[in-house]
């Protein structure tokens, strides 16, 4: 049988020539969203400096890390999940559960060095449970983590629906501890922990097999499986990590406010997702960087700072601006990925 696609055509040459023809230069589109966010951040900061007095004080930037430490830690965990193409709605509720449980256990005179690992482990276990349900029963991450959200929130409210103060010495000492960076510029330990978590996540994503498997699964999970990658293990690990980060966020919250409250962190899952998206992490998975998430958190934080400086604007305006930005960034991602194809 003669097939036309088979018959040699004299015009096309051999191997090396063919390769040259295929070698088309394309700019690396995966950096565009993150550069756009960086640009936005610089513009916002410059606007702030130009319009408000004392905006150029270094403590404005340093305080961004302090005020958004919890969000940053949670968003780091969320970044892993979104990179695999999933989503974790339970993190806000896990924060609530962690803060109220920490406060309650400390009030019952549990040793702080037992409470700390215990609540972190609980967060990781909740995440692992959700990951297992998602993997073994092929449940949509949205549904599985929504169930997790209700469970954790309900458990938190059952423990205590009122705010519980923390009087433990260790918690208070960490809470009161100040790190002097420069003359008049101080920060808290929770900011350092948040920054360390970003650094650790960046290293894991860029340099470990686990990190690369996360990208592979987000790119094409079926292919990843056929390439012999541990898809199930990686997926469960990602949700475990997210649960752990949420619990760590809860601990940072309880340190910062020296109290626990079952409604703490309500809705923070959505802030974390927004930060990831603004930072250029593709919701369909497989593309994005934890550095982008960091920038995303800083952008949302800076919006709040500017509104504070303005003074006469309602805090609700920060939500409106974040909403507008989200739209803009999702549309931009769509345009960039379409061009890449």
């Amino acid at each position, binding site marked *: *049988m*003669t*097939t*036309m*696609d*088979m*018959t*040699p*055509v*004299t*015009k*096309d*040459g*051999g*191997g*090396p020539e*063919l*390769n*040259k023809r*295929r*070698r*088309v230069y*394309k700019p*690396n589109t*995966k950096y565009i969203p993150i550069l756009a966010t960086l640009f936005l951040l610089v513009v916002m900061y410059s606007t702030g400096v130009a319009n408000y007095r004392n905006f150029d004080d270094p403590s404005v930037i340093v305080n961004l890390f302090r005020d958004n430490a919890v969000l940053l830690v949670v968003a780091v965990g969320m970044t892993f999940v979104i990179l695999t193409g999933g989503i974790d709605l339970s993190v806000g509720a896990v924060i609530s559960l962690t803060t109220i449980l920490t406060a309650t256990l400390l009030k019952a005179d549990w040793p702080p060095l037992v409470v700390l690992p215990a609540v972190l482990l609980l967060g990781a276990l909740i995440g692992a449970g959700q990951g297992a349900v998602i993997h073994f029963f092929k449940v949509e991450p949205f549904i599985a983590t929504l169930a997790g959200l209700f469970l954790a929130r309900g458990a938190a409210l059952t423990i205590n629906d009122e705010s519980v103060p923390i009087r433990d010495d260790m918690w208070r000492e960490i809470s009161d501890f100040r790190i002097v960076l420069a003359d008049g510029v101080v920060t808290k330990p929770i900011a350092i922990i948040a920054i360390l978590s970003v650094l650790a996540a960046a290293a894991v994503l*860029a*340099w*470990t*097999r686990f990190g*690369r*498997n996360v*990208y*592979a699964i*987000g*790119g*094409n999970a*079926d*292919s*990843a*499986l*056929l*390439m*012999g*990658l*541990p898809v199930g293990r990686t997926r469960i690990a990602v949700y475990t990590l997210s649960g752990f980060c949420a619990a760590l966020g809860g601990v940072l919250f309880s340190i910062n406010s020296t109290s626990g409250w079952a409604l703490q962190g309500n809705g923070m899952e959505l802030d974390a997702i927004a930060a990831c998206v603004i930072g250029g992490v593709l919701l369909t998975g*497989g*593309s994005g960087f934890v550095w982008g998430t960091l920038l995303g958190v800083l952008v949302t934080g800076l919006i709040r700072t500017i509104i504070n400086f303005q003074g006469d604007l309602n805090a609700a305006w920060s939500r409106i601006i974040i909403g507008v930005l989200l739209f803009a960034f999702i549309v931009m991602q769509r345009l960039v990925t379409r061009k*890449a*194809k």
Partner: protein
Amino acid sequence: MGEQSPVLEMTGIRKVFPGVVALDGVDFRLFPGEVHALMGENGAGKSTLIKTLTGVYEIDGGEIRLGGEPVRISGPLAAQQAGVSTVYQEVNLCTNLSVAENIFIGREPRRFGKIQWGKMRQRAAELLARLDLDLDVSAPLSSYSLAIQQMVAIARAIDIDARVLILDEPTSSLDTAEVAQLFRVMRRLKESGVAILFVSHFLDQIYEVSDRLTILRNGQLISEHRVDELTQVQLVEKMIGKELAALEDLEDKAQSNRERSAEAKPVLEAKGLGRTGAIAPYDLTIHEGEVVGLAGLLGSGRTELARLLFGADRADTGEVLVDGKRINLRDPQVAMKHRIAFSSENRRAEGIIGDLSVRENIILALQASRGWTRPIPRKKQDEIVDKYIKALQIRPADPERPVRNLSGGNQQKVLLARWLITEPRLLIIDEPTRGIDVGAKAEIQRLVAELSDGGMAVLFVSAELEEVLRLSHKIAVLRDRRLVEELENTADVDADRIMQTIASGATS
């Protein structure tokens, strides 16, 4: 090939799916340094056999030996570790990752747990150089063509120190030069002692590159041969298990009805129809009872031309006349209203809905044209569907079976049935016989001939020249996204004549 011991020996392989015995005591041997073609019609059990080897399915009976040792292949990873690598028809890589990563992911060179990117890129470049490829290994895979992606998949496969390399329909989306390059790579691998299992629907390719072949039919082993001891005709007969009389018969039939259609009325006329970047403006008239064949290389604009006639893409110049009246073809619904049907080339992505049953798939277009508020009574549905299952010989003849469980050829027939029940006046079929077996091909060709006898106008798009020649009254030849020649299919027109036009672009 000398008498060495086989690297892979499968004996008495049995695989049962609910209601179907997919493999029934199949034996298969593969020697080091050979290219071995696995032959059979769609549904013969080729894919199932391959999937038992790659660990996608577990066997229900029989034994697999690799290098003389019995093995149990429990999953894709286990298969790779045992030295069996597979490159699938659809490239199964992650296009968001770099070329180097796609080759090495899961086996990245590491020191103290940290991936050594520099070393990885260097090794990737070396490996690709062995395949005559010079790529930017840090570029994302998505920036390369499908053919290059496939080569990258092969590079990945051979780096696993594969003893057995399975190439499942690797050539179906490649052009001529790319196929030649793939064959060079295959020969090189063969020389280095790799055993290659090769599956392709193109018989010429099988004969060009393979040493031996094994034929399956209906889940059973038919025979194993050296390629040089079997002619193509004998091979096809063994695959379909009947004489080629069916095909010959069709030849006569088509020959005779080529004469007619002289005074038939035009059904559709395209005047200066074109779309920038897709197809240059063209004129084309299709008459009642006429089969117009579209010939041209892959990427010459065959599909693009057809899509404009169905309104699947919007033309930016020209007009379309149906029965001499101009119509505004803004979307496929307009085309359907004028009883134009389009059976897509890409049956998986654009046509067949795998989870719906045969009946639901067939009834879909008719129901859509009636509007969803007027459901077709179930009894009527069963009647229609039974009729077409019989007429097209869809197998298994079970209207309630999900379509995804059917073989490619039968899925194509279901798709055809879907459009036929809407009683179109013009049927556009894009590559109806691609990736399906010889027997089903003959049936679909016969069907097209019968339909045009019954007065239906058909636009037949196919990569196989002989098929176009056999069926068409008129042939339109495309080259570089331009309709370069239109010729009546008279006795002196043959494949060489058309190839010349395609190669030179000459217009007469």
